[in-house]
């Protein structure tokens, strides 16, 4: 029996008989067997037609696939009926927490509602069946959509150009840093500028990206107020610095209130000012990084613009650039080859096509860093983000940030009596608490607290990030959570704080209501078991 067979069954262990099922022949207890273990030789879900007589006859005489290149044994794929297959994945789905089920305040990830009309749009056959190498006359709709989205992202960010190619935030960072290198090289400073400055609160992708382009990372400390230490920044800037990568608002949820001076100092030193735009959801309509002097920024369409996170992607990480880096953007770029941009925009905003307008892909960009991804990027995400921006419109985007910031500040004031607040000042879209008091006084870690949140049916905040906050809990409620949900989360967090004091052991035992309990991660790393292997058992193994 599996969890999906008996939803909601509870026994004293909290998990119910739903979890006592074992696969035949093994003593190990499993929640849901692997798809391989559900396989039975001869079953299938999908059938294909046979080649016609004519096709087979015509193929005779053409070279066959030569013996030397042929596979000896078929790959060991599972064999299931469509219903068995569907039930298997539906059961697995039941084991997940997700935005569509409950509150998911995972800081830095912007787990907002993913509107369903976006999915409808991405599935339109005219878009979903469009081949990336279709000749331009057949792909005018896809190209127009990309051009319009880039225009909107430019409006939103204040940059003068955008490349949609990068497939995620980190990929946008890589793109930005490669452009930075190309810029310095063209200025004859490629050899000399080898350092990238990264605040100590930065996401791990920032230093990892610097390494991927052959740069050395220099960590800049934060000040007591959670901002970058301007003195330390000025001290580190020099003729050997290629760029500053700064997240704003920072990963502490704090807007860098000296951002004007930061950007000025970086530019004065001849370095590139890179903004990690993961937290753009806090500042729509309030701060436009391009207009404020940043040279480059990546967007996370899967955060700010609501494309579903998919259990770890796909995302999309377009980059916006100012004039200094524009020549280096990845090619090709969708362009309006014929037509007046203002007219095409005005028409599109009114839902009309512009007669005579022609869109094309401009590959003739001699100083481009080249391509960072095949084809044109994660187009399906562009469709969703475009739909979302058009649905919200300018005023709606401003409201998004206002409500996201309001909700996060509300949680700050409502939770600060229960947990330590290292930076007690108005924050933006997220707020970082510390579980250090609970750790010190009761020996209950932030990990334990997170696990206790699971027992309340909610997803916990991001924990142990940013690294500069001891026992960090980074909470990002987003704008789409109702006041009732926020209040319920507040009471859950208060209850847990009370439980930590009254019965710390019970918190350390959490979670008890989830499909599985705490997992042995150390054992997983010590003896990596990264794939299912045939065990030779006729019952469960699929034939080779």
């Amino acid at each position, binding site marked *: 029996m599996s969890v999906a067979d008996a939803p909601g069954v509870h026994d004293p262990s909290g998990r119910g008989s739903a979890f006592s099922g074992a696969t035949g022949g093994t003593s190990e*207890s499993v*929640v849901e067997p692997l798809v391989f273990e559900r396989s039975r030789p001869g079953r299938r879900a999908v059938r294909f*037609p046979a*080649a016609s007589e004519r096709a087979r006859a015509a193929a005779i005489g053409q070279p066959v*696939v030569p013996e*030397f290149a042929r596979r000896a044994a078929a*790959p060991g*794929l599972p064999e299931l009926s469509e219903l068995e297959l569907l039930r298997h994945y*539906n059961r697995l*789905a039941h*084991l*997940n927490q*997700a935005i569509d089920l409950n509150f998911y305040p995972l800081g830095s990830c912007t787990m907002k509602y993913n509107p369903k009309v976006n999915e*409808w749009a991405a599935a339109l056959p005219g878009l979903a069946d*469009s*081949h990336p190498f*279709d*000749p331009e006359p*057949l792909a*005018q709709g*896809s190209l*127009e959509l990309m051009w319009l989205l880039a225009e909107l992202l430019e*409006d939103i960010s204040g940059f003068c150009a955008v490349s949609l190619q990068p*497939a995620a935030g*980190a990929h946008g960072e890589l793109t930005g840093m*490669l452009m930075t290198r190309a810029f310095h090289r063209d200025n004859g400073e490629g050899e000399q500028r080898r350092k990238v400055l990264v605040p100590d609160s930065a996401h*791990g992708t920032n230093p990892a990206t610097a390494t*991927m382009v*052959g740069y*050395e990372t220099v960590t800049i400390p934060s000040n007591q107020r959670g901002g970058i230490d301007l003195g330390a920044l000025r001290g580190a800037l020099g003729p050997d610095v290629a760029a500053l990568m700064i997240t704003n608002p920072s990963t502490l949820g*704090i807007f860098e209130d000296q*951002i004007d001076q930061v950007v000025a100092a970086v530019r004065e030193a001849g370095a590139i000012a890179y903004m990690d735009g993961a937290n753009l959801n806090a500042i729509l309509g*309030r*701060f436009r990084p391009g207009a*404020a002097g940043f040279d480059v920024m990546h967007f996370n369409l*899967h955060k700010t613009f609501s494309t*579903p996170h998919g*259990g770890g*992607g*796909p995302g999309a990480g377009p980059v916006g650039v100012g004039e200094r880096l524009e020549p280096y953007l990845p090619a090709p770029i969708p362009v309006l080859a014929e037509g007046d941009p203002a007219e095409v925009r005005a028409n599109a905003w009114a839902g009309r096509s512009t007669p005579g307008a022609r869109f094309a892909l401009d590959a003739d960009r001699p100083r481009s860093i080249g*391509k*960072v*991804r*095949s*084809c*044109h990027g*994660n187009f*399906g995400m562009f469709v969703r983000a*475009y739909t979302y921006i058009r*649905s919200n419109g300018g005023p*709606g985007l401003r*409201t998004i940030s206002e*409500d996201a910031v309001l909700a996060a500040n509300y949680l700050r*004031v409502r939770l600060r009596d229960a947990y330590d607040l290292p930076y007690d000042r108005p924050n933006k879209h997220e707020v970082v608490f510390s579980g250090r008091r609970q750790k010190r006084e009761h020996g209950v870690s932030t990990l334990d607290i997170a696990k206790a949140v699971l027992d309340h049916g909610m997803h916990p905040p991001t924990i142990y990030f940013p690294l500069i906050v001891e026992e960090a809990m980074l909470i990002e409620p987003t704008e*789409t959570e109702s006041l009732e949900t926020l209040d319920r989360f507040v009471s859950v967090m208060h209850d847990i704080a009370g439980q930590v004091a009254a019965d710390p052991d019970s918190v350390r035992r959490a979670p008890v209501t989830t*499909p599985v*309990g705490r997992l*042995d*991660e150390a054992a*997983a790393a010590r003896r990596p078991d990264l794939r299912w292997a045939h065990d030779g058992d006729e019952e469960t193994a699929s034939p080779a």
Partner: protein
Amino acid sequence: MTYSPHTDADRATMLAAIGVASVDELFDDIPASVRAGGWDVPPPLAEQEVRAELARLARRNRIPEVSFLGAGVYRHLVPAVVGEVIGRPEFATAYTPYQPEVSQGTLQSIYEFQSLICELTGMEVATASHYDGATATAEAALMACRLTRRDRIAVSAGVSPDTRRVLATYCSGPGIEIVTVPIDLSQGGTGTTDPAVAAAALGSDAACLVAAQPNFHGQIEPMRDLAEVAHAAGAQLVAVVEPTSLSILEAPGAYGADIVAAEGQPLGIPASFGGPFVGLMAARMGSVRQMPGRLVGATRDVEGRRGYVLTLQAREQHIRREKAASNICTNQALMALAATTYLAAVGPSGLREVAELSITQARHLVTALESAGLARRRFGGSYFAEVTVTVPDAARRHAALVEQGIVAGHLAERDEPDLRDTLLLATTELTTDDDIDRLVEALAATR
């Protein structure tokens, strides 16, 4: 239209709790000199309006009635069950499974994905996805450089031009030199990588040889020989493969590939103008600590139940920061689930039928074109389900057919000036006899 649930009363409650008079006060920390002025973002649209706008853009595309275009992205059947599974909100609206107790669905499906990719490739370990085949190939080459501590790579000209472009961009970062292994593209040439030429390009200090099977021109490469020359040079073989072909073609693990990279799009993912796709990567267990990207491993919970977790994270950016094997964070998990569902749906016999139908139609197509006197195969040797043919005046005729909604494959000279008057034609299980007739008729009419 906004998706915020807040009423003015809710907002007032929150403002009062925070102790500010207006939401503007919460933005006071933005220095006045850089506060945003106006912008040109248009007004909001209601659902019916936004639907009309997206339908307009979809209509502006013209999906060809007949298409033989592949060149790395293929139109295959996407079984309905695949869409059903990846559309489930428990998969689609979750994120990276940082909390394994409430992410077993995602984690187990990734473990299944890793297992399926190992089965398909004959390799020992597969990662939990990359952005696409091109970036997976680039990361594989960088991994080979780390493993061999060398900084030069040899890349067959049979690897797709799009992939080679991305590879060049990635290698420009750490300053890795790329030597291209040329292949004979002349009429009647082999159209494949010559092991002796590859050996010369590898020399004694290359980290890897990157070669594709089948190659971009549809030709079947001598992978075993290429593995031998790579290993003789102390280099790794990075095999770039097409996943549906692996139901028939030798598993890379069996011919000595050290790292496998692939575009997973043919496994149940629509063309969608180029993405989202999924990059596959597989390798030997001995190299696992140099692999980029996520890995899921099986373990037990406190009560002995089987469960799954993200593992070997000491390779990744969130732990290792500047010392990480890669900067990759968000990957293509939902598309990996599509590939997983697809492989389980078609099973071993279905995948074989897909490949066999595609192969048969490719040969049917060549026969039909040759017997009508319209085209001849460019190269000797054998091909898989994509074929390069020589067609006089190809560029003009390709354009003429586009007007009729027929895409006569990929015009090869766009990427390879040496390949004038050649078309790269792809067939899949969706190619019908009628499609072939229409192409032949239309091409004949442009003579």
